[in-house]
């Protein structure tokens, strides 16, 4: 493999080595083995992530319209993207989702984790599994399933509401589609976040709780004053996951679009917009620009969030 004979260390690595010990033959050989182990990943990482990204970035600097050919336009596509009302309204949509959906998922996940952490019966193990199960359902399948549950004809809603003499809401109408999507995502992801938070809670030394109880703290106080502050770095991580996922919102609305084409237009979220530009309208160049523009937005928001929470996340 070519990578094994590549230069074995970067300048900075060399500099740090010299401070500690001289590079001997043994060390060099070990380093060579290191590269060998890294090579499979590096190769795949380069060819399936870095190179496509560079290629897409290059594409985003050109235009190729249906009627005229390919032209180099520099950042024009980005200027167009950030002034494109469709892209901006898509960003507005995912921002709304972020405001509603992330807190919803956090509250459900945190409450479930705190309750499960306090229980030690077989029921808690069982509940933990059950809350986690939706995450094990592939996203497309989950969304298809909810599509049927929301269906006025096949779904259970009509029957349930009939029992109390009410008309079932139209989950797939323009007014309700937002809530319907929030519900699907929360159902799917809260269990996953719950597991992360639960694992963090398990990592806390129980001695701390005993000390708190001796001091007269109630369960609620322990949860609020001890547990939550001590797992704040995990909470920040969960929010970052949720934030990135929400800004790239795609699969659920794309699948539900199959049963609600009016309520979910093709450009509902920025990712859907990029998808339809590329694969329905053959505008690969502008679609690349939209994707990168979305990437920039995701980066900026993640960065701001990490900066604001640097104390809680332990990054500082």
């Amino acid at each position, binding site marked *: 493999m070519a990578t094994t004979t590549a230069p074995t260390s970067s300048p900075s690595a060399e500099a740090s080595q010299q401070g500690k010990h001289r590079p001997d033959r043994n060390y060099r050989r070990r380093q060579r083995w290191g590269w060998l182990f890294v090579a499979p990943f590096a190769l795949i990482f380069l060819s399936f992530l870095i190179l496509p990204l560079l290629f897409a970035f290059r594409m985003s600097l050109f235009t190729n319209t249906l*009627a*005229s050919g390919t032209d180099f336009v520099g950042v024009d596509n980005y200027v167009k993207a950030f002034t494109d009302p469709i892209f901006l309204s898509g960003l507005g949509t995912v921002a709304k989702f972020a405001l509603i959906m992330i807190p919803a998922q956090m509250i459900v996940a945190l409450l479930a984790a705190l309750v499960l952490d306090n229980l030690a019966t077989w029921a808690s193990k069982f509940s933990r599994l059950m809350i986690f199960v939706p995450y094990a359902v592939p996203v497309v399948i989950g969304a298809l399933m909810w599509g049927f549950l929301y269906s006025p004809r*096949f779904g259970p809603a009509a029957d349930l509401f009939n029992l109390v003499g009410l008309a079932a809401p139209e989950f797939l109408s323009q007014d309700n589609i937002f809530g319907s999507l929030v519900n699907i995502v929360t159902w799917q992801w809260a269990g996953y976040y719950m597991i992360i938070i639960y694992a963090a809670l398990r990592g806390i030394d129980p001695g701390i709780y005993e000390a708190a109880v001796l001091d007269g703290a109630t369960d609620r106080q322990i949860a609020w004053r001890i547990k939550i502050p001590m797992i704040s770095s995990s909470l920040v991580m969960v929010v970052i996951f949720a934030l990135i996922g929400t800004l790239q919102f795609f699969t659920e609305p794309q699948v539900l679009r199959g*049963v609600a*084409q009016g309520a979910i237009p093709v450009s509902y979220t920025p990712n859907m917009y990029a998808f339809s530009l590329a694969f*329905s309208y053959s505008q690969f160049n502008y679609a690349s620009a939209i994707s990168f523009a979305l990437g920039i937005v995701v980066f900026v928001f993640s960065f701001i969030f990490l900066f604001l929470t640097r104390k809680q996340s332990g990054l500082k």
Partner: protein
Amino acid sequence: MKATYLATAGIAAAAVVLTGCSGGSDSGGGSEAASCTNTIVNTEAPQVTVWAWYPAFDQVVDQFNNANDDVQICWTNAGQGNDEYTKFSTSIESGSGAPDVIQLESEVLSSFTIRDALVDLTEYGADEVEDQYAAGAWEDASSGDAVYAIPVDGGPMGMLYRQDIFDAAGIEVPTTWEEFEAAARTLKESGSEAVIADFPTNGRAFNQALFAQAGSEPFVYDSANPQEIGIKVNDEGAKKVLDYWDGLVKDGLVATDDAFTADYNTKLVDGSYAVYLAAAWGPGYLQGLSDADPEAIWRAAPLPQWDAANPVQVNWGGSTFAVTEQAGDKELAAKVAMGIFGNEEGMNLGVDAGALFPSYAPVLESDEFATKEYEFFGGQQINQDVFLDAAAGYEGATFSPFQNYAYDQLTEQIYAMVQGEKDSGQALDDLQASLEQYATEQGFTLK
């Protein structure tokens, strides 16, 4: 157009797993080592790769391969409609991976000719077979003098209706849209659970066909002059038709359910709609649906007219075989495109096993086809009664080179109208504005 694909559009992400033998390396096409769904009968002969999603197409392919020693079809089902087009589109962009021959609905042909993806078949003798095909279907597959595809099946429109629901409400079969509206009111007043029909906001080609019946000609486009396009989606015909349906929607006389969803499929056959305004592939579609009302009595009648004295026939869907620019041996590929359904054995298989409405004249004009009795319609000869006239009267239509975009926008506008956000005229004017803007952005000159 076998439009069922829309119902499963959500599963677009699912990969198509292909089984079968690997094709010989001596492929007639430029495509990569092929893996065919079918068995190659004559392994010595050059192979032509074909993408298609016709029902029962495996039988047609086997029939072709058994009948031809000098060429063999290597068939792949690359998805229906948009699923296939997405793959084709990506292949065009990357410059490889397209099949030699591809099934395309006639409405998307110019979307691909403008990307130089299809071969003009007149070079390979397509103009010599023109008289073997229905005139309207041929018109749809050609642009100016060029012929970009060989027609396979068509979708002349008719009206499938529930005789039992009509009888219960005392309704005569409407022959004009005026009578249709009156029937809708009678039906509603009779207290029936059914509405007369569905007007789907995502009808796309269906909505466009209804507009065309009142004389709407949304696009003027000739691929010989690809930079120029005329757009008139808000002409008088379109406005008249959409205003009519807007009225029916506002009065609660029709449903506005999305088409091709599971809900819609059920409602089509369970008596929620008294009428299914359908193309000639509609009867086959209906029979394939489950949960049908066993008491239902279905009959077919011609599509209602605006002016009974001057009937206008329209078409919804219909597909073709085109040869791609990536084909290795274009002459051989053209021969296959013309040959698959261009003979009575192949087309009869398509008609009997796949419920296609043929564009191939020797079958289309045969007595056998005209007098074919359909059990689903109580033995009615629906071809003779309805669809043959409709096919004969259809003169063809012109589609834009960005038809998918145009349909997506049409859906958005009609949905906004149904939601009461704007009236029909405004919806079409907004559609016109958005398409003009799009065309300009894409570098077209507006005529």
